[in-house]
């Protein structure tokens, strides 16, 4: 499989599982798809509830810099993060945002996809699984990794007591992506 590098940025509040989402997707790409991936993040003395973002690049070729200027896909789980990181979306890129946001899209000309991630997670029992809804959505809409890859890495990563919730959230996210195809 040959593909050009796909640059994804996950952003939101600390505690929303932003970094974990990037790590799960990257782990699936590297350990199960024979792809290359690099992941980095901003951090610092940002407390819980602070801003958080994680960058992930997936490619069929070795990757140099873990930092890239323009993203193909931005996943925003908070308005503040959307405000801050939307400028890093490349022309022709896609913004995936949680419908729970106040949703000021700043009249962007980019393709925008609303995903009711938090709402869906709440209906499944806990809003902390919103990131898993997004991961399910990304898996299905990009096919960068398979459903089995994602489920397997989620199984290996999340604590046992949240596993069932997280797997349901992944499935729900996949359902939300039915018919959505993101070119990568």
């Amino acid at each position, binding site marked *: 499989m040959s593909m050009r590098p796909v640059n994804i940025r996950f952003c939101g509040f600390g505690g929303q599982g932003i970094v974990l989402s990037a*790590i799960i997707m990257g782990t699936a*790409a590297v350990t199960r798809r024979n792809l290359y991936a690099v992941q980095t*993040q901003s951090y*610092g003395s940002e407390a819980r*509830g602070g801003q958080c973002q994680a960058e992930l690049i997936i490619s069929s070729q070795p990757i140099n810099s*873990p930092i890239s200027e323009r993203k193909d896909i931005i996943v925003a789980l908070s308005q503040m993060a959307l405000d801050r990181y*939307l400028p890093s979306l490349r022309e022709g890129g896609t913004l995936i945002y949680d419908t729970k946001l106040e949703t000021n899209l700043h009249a962007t000309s980019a393709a925008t996809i609303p995903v009711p991630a938090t709402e869906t997670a709440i209906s499944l029992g806990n809003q902390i699984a919103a990131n898993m809804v997004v991961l399910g959505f990304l898996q299905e809409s990009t096919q960068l990794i398979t459903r089995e890859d994602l489920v397997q890495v989620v199984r290996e990563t999340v604590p046992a007591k949240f596993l069932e919730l997280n797997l349901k959230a992944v499935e729900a996210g996949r359902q939300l992506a039915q018919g959505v195809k993101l070119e990568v």
Partner: protein
Amino acid sequence: MKKFLSGDEAIARGAFEYGATFAAAYPGTPSTEIIENILPYKEIYAEWSPNEKVALEVAIGASLAGARSLVAMKHVGVNVAADPLFTAAYTGVNGGLVIVSADEPSLHSSQNEQDNRNFAPFAKIPMLEPSDSQEAKDLVGEAFRISEEYDTPVLLRITTRIAHAKGLVECYERQEVEVKEYKKNAAKYCMVPANARKRRVFVEERTRLLSEFSETFLYNRIEWGDKSIGIITSGISYQYAREVFGAKASYLKLTMTWPLPEKLMREFAEGVEKLYVVEELDPFLENQVKAMGIPVIGKELLPNMFEFTPELLRQKFFGVDPASNPVTEVEIPPRPPVLCAGCPHRPVFYILKKHRVPVMGDIGCYGLGLQPPLEAVDTTVCMGASVGMTHGFQKASAWNGVPRKVVGVIGDSTFFHGGMTGVADMVFNNGSGVIVVLDNRTTAMTGHQPHPGTGITGKGEVTDEIKIEDVVRALGVRDVQIVDSYDLQAVDQAVRHALDFDGPSVVICRRACALLKGLPDLGKAVINQEQCTRCHACLRTGCPALVSHPDKSVTIDTNACNGCFVCGQVCPVGAIEKVGGGERG
């Protein structure tokens, strides 16, 4: 087996695969995750030491005992450990000894920015620099090999982007390495002048041999591309250069960056038309190239501070402005970090501000005590500095005829790291400073590592808890008070008493970090809107759980509130109630 690992995780994996049986560290960003990921290996003894100097000393001891040993620290930690480092360079090793220095260009979580590559020539030890997670793991093996073959500690130098970025790492089984036999050898290990003079000569000869090794070291390599531009680079800068220039330049990727492969560098320089050095921070490689008499462009083009990015290189090399985004432009206000909701440091700073005394700060979350509205901290220098500075500030003031009280604030882990000797000094020299120990029962800033006062080791074993009150009493402090940080009145009274006391005084403000796991549920604070006069006294605590609305009303975000009830204690009309939770433990 492929894994998706950060540089720190890869170094931990390297310690495992290449037969280390010993590791030590004091936590510090961005190095903390190295030992955190070594601790679970049952094959490796690992510990959190009280500071980096001790960590290196125990690793030197372990190396002497024949164990492959790894010690990890952040860049400023190497300053603390410099004393043993410079003489371990003379004694050499028995089991391999690797010192990881995790530098932090851009000071994401540090008090300064320093380029620890300078330590390699300064201490006269070899240095390796990985460019990604795979190399980070592989180079642990190379470093152990070099250490044992050349009888030297080896510096493995990484930066934040290597430490914390994840990438593909091919992993293997552990190679068991036999622990070497210890033989008493005073001429080698006992650095008194007569022996050290001989080892001094050995060190120079070792550096000469390592220079030869560096010429053929496989990780130092030329990657020929377009020869009109040649780039000498190392570490993460190599990745950025490749990203920007691709095949339109040739590269000399240096991995052993001390001692340098002079012949290889000359060969590369002769093969290209225009030579550049791309390196973050100091002109470390550039100065060496220039000392060889080779013309090169480095810091005249690229900054000597802060992290690079591919974007920055494009801008500097091609004059491309950081493209304004064609899709959207957004202005956003900056949001500085604040103490967490329920942080036990907040009430102490709230009281200290009221007393209007100079407050010498220290390294930890409580550095945030400088932010408005608390603005309680006057200075922050380095681990443990608050105690010595308090003594010096107080003494100099009194000596020069402006007697005044001075307060130093220091965390529990920082107290064990570098505060104890300062207290001894204050007692010894008849000081009269007030030391407030912000005892939140953990090393909070770096993610809750245990320390000598927690009663538990890094491996999770129960151990004797060293009590700070016992330590300061043993050091001769007669006025020692212990209060609950959450009890504003008690903190106020204790501080007032300490300020009035003639002589050294210690106030231990004790309350666990609100983010520690397993704490009792303290309930939530709720504002009774009918009673609230909208005076905003509560907002002066600076708690992020308090939400101020345009109509001047204030509410409390119950998701963020940790139930410390400090806001309730400052409310002049008693409009804040506690809902739920048990008794305050």
